[in-house]
Every structure is written in structure tokens, then in C-alpha cells.
């Protein structure tokens, strides 16, 4: 089944939101990335056809945005923020911890394909740094203990209860 057939309803819903088809490009690339973990060339071809774009038009857009993967990444893509506000509270130390614990540096993946590490810029969690994003989830106010627990959780269950919920900091006091 082609990509477009597989996600027929979702694609129709996305297209209905925009008066100009090309606006659906980024949303559709997200669907393709969810499907395979990265955006395959055939999905790009199909999307180009669907939106009446040329393949280079799709390619020029996709390569501008850092969140699209053009090749497979680890099951858990760890992205540590290294911008100034996080760096002030120890993000470089967090990167070192990950290097020692997983044996990978930025841009690398573990041999089992489980973890990849990237170092990224500000993710809008500067008051609760140091922080990282793993796949779709944020993890904030990292400590070494917390990092260990997160990695263990991910290995055993694929997710971790330490991830952030709806953000508010500081939190109201419960009385």
C-alpha cells in the first residue's frame, strides 16, 4: 500500500485545513516521518505528486527544517539543549554524563540502534534547565540520578514517568 493510501483519511483532513495545497507540506512530512521514523524518498515523491509540487520543491523545504530526518535515527533520539540559559545551569555536564553512560557523542548512535544523541538549541524550557527532549517528550531539571532513571525506564518500558506534563514553573503551592 502506498503512503497516500495508508493515510487517506488523515491526509484528507490535513488538506481540508488550507486553501492552498502547498501549506499541507510540513504536516504531511510529519505523517510520513511518524510512519517510518524518517521521511523516505518514496514518501517525498508521493507527497510532491499529491501537492502538485516538483520533487525539488519538497526537498528544498524538508532540508531547511532540523526536525525532519532523511535517514533512520535511534529508537530514542536524545536532544540536549546547550543554549546559554541551560549552559549556565550545567547542560555541558549532562552531555558528558550521556557520553560516559552511553558511549556516544553528539551525532552518534549506540551500536544497538537504541539511542542517538544530538545537541540542540533552546527548547523553551530555560527556567527548568538543564533539559533534554527524547522523541516527543521533554525531561527537565536533570540530575545524574534522574538521567539514570530515565535511561533505565526507556530501556525497560519505552517511556518514562519522569517526562514533563503540561508546563508550569514555579508550580502553585497546594494548600
Amino acid at each position: 500500500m502506498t503512503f497516500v493510501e495508508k493515510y487517506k483519511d488523515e491526509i484528507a483532513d490535513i488538506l481540508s485545513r488550507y486553501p492552498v495545497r502547498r501549506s499541507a507540506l510540513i504536516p504531511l512530512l510529519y505523517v510520513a516521518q511518524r510512519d517510518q521514523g524518517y521521511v523516505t524518498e518514496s514518501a517525498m515523491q508521493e507527497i510532491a505528486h499529491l501537492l502538485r509540487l516538483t520533487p525539488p520543491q519538497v526537498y528544498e523545504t524538508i532540508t531547511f527544517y532540523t526536525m525532519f530526518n532523511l535517514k533512520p535515527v535511534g529508537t530514542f533520539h536524545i536532544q540536549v539543549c546547550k543554549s546559554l540559559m541551560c549552559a549556565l545551569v550545567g547542560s555541558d555536564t549532562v552531555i558528558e554524563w550521556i557520553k560516559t553512560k552511553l558511549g556516544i557523542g553528539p551525532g552518534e548512535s549506540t551500536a544497538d540502534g537504541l539511542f542517538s544523541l544530538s545537541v540542540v538549541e533552546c527548547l523553551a524550557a530555560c527556567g527548568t534547565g538543564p533539559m533534554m527532549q527524547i522523541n516527543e517528550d521533554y525531561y527537565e531539571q536533570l540530575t545524574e540520578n534522574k538521567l539514570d532513571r530515565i535511561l533505565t525506564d526507556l530501556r525497560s518500558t519505552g517511556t518514562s514517568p519522569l517526562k514533563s506534563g503540561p508546563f508550569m514553573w514555579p508550580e502553585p503551592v497546594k494548600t
Partner: protein
Amino acid sequence: MAGTGKDVSSETLGEAGTPLFIVRLACNDPMPKHELILLKNMMQPGYTGSLADYEKTGGYQALRNTLGKLAPADVTAIVRKSGLRGRGGAGFPTGVKWGFLPKDYQGPRYLCCNADESEPGTFKDRQLMERDPHQVLEGIVLACYAIGSETAYIYIRGEMVLGSKILEHAIGEARAAGYIGKNVLGSGINVDVWVHRGAGAYICGEETALLESLEGKRGLPRIKPPFPATHGLYNKPTVVNNVETLANLPHIITRGPEWFAAIGSPPKSTGTRVFCVSGHVKRPGNYEVPMGMTVRELVYEYAGGMRSDKPLKAFIPGGASAPFLTPAHLDVKLDFEHVAAAGSMLGSGGVTVMEEGTSMVWAALRLMEFFYHESCGKCSPCREGSSWLVQTMRRIFAKRGRMEDLETLLDLCKNIAGRTVCAFGDAEVAPIQSTLKHWRHEYVDLINEAEAANLIRPEPVARR
């Protein structure tokens, strides 16, 4: 901790000698001495941000009292009278901006809610959207009504997956209750609201880059004029407003422009700001205070003061794009005029505090690396200049600098600022220019060390 409820207060971070305390103290300690507007609901323990919770606090009453009762032009007039200025960075008066839309234009107009929040140091829109999404949505519908738009897109940064899900859910609730969709509350007005996720590019927060991105293209800013008010999304009249700007609207409608205009530092900086305090303070976080509060009060009373006994050395008052200020500026009032007069800008409201012992060259380099990474590459002064700046800064920080590098830095800055397609060019030179102005000796010391050790060596040219 943000949302998990697990306590890590007793743990410390970092290698020996760098105790990085995480202090967990509640925010209404000290109790706010003034009324909260935007954070009021979410400060109630147990408030979930659901439609039912929002309605219980009077939510959507502003919309009910507007549709069929006020003309769109009246809403614009009220907002203009309130003095509300944009919270996204530039501080442009919101009602005035709306007034630029062509009055007689037949055809679609658009509202874009700028939820790209990627300015380092800023994390308020995330909280406003994730904790009280209906407050933002009500503001969006009110703005659509005022400008005659039937379609709004919320451009949210791609990384905020949770935020986009919360908004989608809230839109579903509002649609079912008749606040969004066809014939809103029986008024005959149609307003559709869609969430559109970005995909990881800081520049898409710039309003015209945002529009390009929303059209499915690379996020390259457009040359202005023409402005979005006449040629925006799909070349149609468009308003781009920040999340916090829009969230203020229901309150202004309900309580009146005079009430709002009396808060803060009237006449030019009215209302509150949600300041995002980060860095070396005891209690970093979001604090909503009336504009015009001094930095000293914000840092020492709200954010709990410095995290250790090291005194404050430097702060940034308005996100990464705002020039650094010194302890001599602690009594500067946090409003548009006073911060500008002190040589910086209020920008996005991100207040970052640095303690004594922080290298200013290092700090400026960190921010420069951000700007180098995020330059969209459309215009040469910014594209090439950011690369030169970052290489020169790296060289100086690695103690391979020469004295003439300082002139090179200043010269480059002068040739970038004001000569680019978008305001990113002005932003990227701010950290270097301001640290060179206030802490030139730190640059000089590093260079002297390099010269004394005879460490100056040619460096291979780094390529992107």
C-alpha cells in the same frame, strides 16, 4: 518539577566544585503583591485548563459580550485604548497593527498566532498554551472578529508536541461548545482555528518567515514592505500576534481598556508581562508582574535572589537578542522605554541572570553559536557575518586571539546590524557588542594570555 511531581530538591548536579542547586520553592512565596491576569487561573490549585474549568472562572464571557454587541471596529478601538503592545519582541501597539488592514478589501484575511517561542531565555507561551489553552483561544477568536478573519492558524514550534496536542484538544472542546466553527454562538460569524506545527527553525518566529513556512516553503523572511497587513499569508491581509498578546484580549474586553491602561507604566507600557527568569537565581520560572517593576525586585524578591553567595554580574532583560546589562542597571524599570533607554530591549521578556565568575566571552560565544546555527542564509551580511563572528569568538575564547580581532568583531557587527532583510541581523550582534562594551577587559585578558604564551596559530577555516 514541571509536571511530574517528583522531588529532586536534595540532589545536586555537576562535578565537584560546581554545586548546581535545584531549589524547589513555590511561586506564591512571596505572595504576589499585585493582581495576576494571565497566570491567575492556572495558579489555582487543581485548575486543569479544561473548558469546564475555564468557563467556571468566567471564560468565554468576553466573547459572549462581544459578538452581536460590539462592532469589530469597537473591539479594535478598545484594544488601541488599552495601550496593549505586542509581547512577541517588537512591542508594536496591537490595536494600531490591526488598523493597518485594508478596510474595503473583499476576500479572506488571516490571523496567525505566533507560538514559535524559540528565543533563548523565553518559556512563557509554552506555559500559557499548556496550562490555560482556552484563554489563548478566546483571544484568537476575539482578534479574528475584530479584523474580520474567518481562519486562524496557530504556528507552534515543532518541538512542543505536548502543547500542540493540548491545543488540538482544547479546539475540539471549543468547537463542540460553539465557540469556534461555523456561526459562533449563533452570531453568524465563522471562525476556524487550526494548529500548524513548525519543524525546528528559530527564524520561523519572525513574522514573514512564519508566513513562508506556513505556505510550505523554507522559512526565509520576506523583504518589508509590503507588510503582512496588506500582503501576508497567501498574499492576503494578515495579522501576526504573539500568544501572550492574544491571551490578554479577553481580560481587556471584560474589564475595559481603562482598567488595563492603568496597570504597569502608563501610558506607553501598559499591563503585565510574564517574565521568564532563568540562569543563576534561586527560583527560576515565569513571574507575571506589572510592567515597570525593577529588575532588582524581579530577581531578588520573585526569583529568590542569587542561587549562591556570588553576586550578580550580568543580566539579559529580554531574551538572547537583547544586549547584556550590568549590576548598575538593576534599578532599571522593566518596561519598553526604560529598558531601551538603558541600552537594551524588553524583547520577549526572557530575563537571564549570570553570577560573578561567569565568563562574558563564553556567554557571548554561546549565544553567537546559536545565531550562527539559526541564520537562515538569505542575506550575505548575516549568513557570512555570523560565520566570521563565531569563528573569531571561538578563537579568542580558545586563547588564540589577537588584539586586532576586537576591531574585526566591532567592524563585522557594524556591517551586519541594520543591513539585513530581517531583525535577526540586529539581534545577533547584541551579545558581542554589549559584552565588548561592558567587559572589554575580559576579551583583552584572554588575548594577552594568548600573546604571552605565544599561542597564536593560524586556524583551519571551519566550514559549515
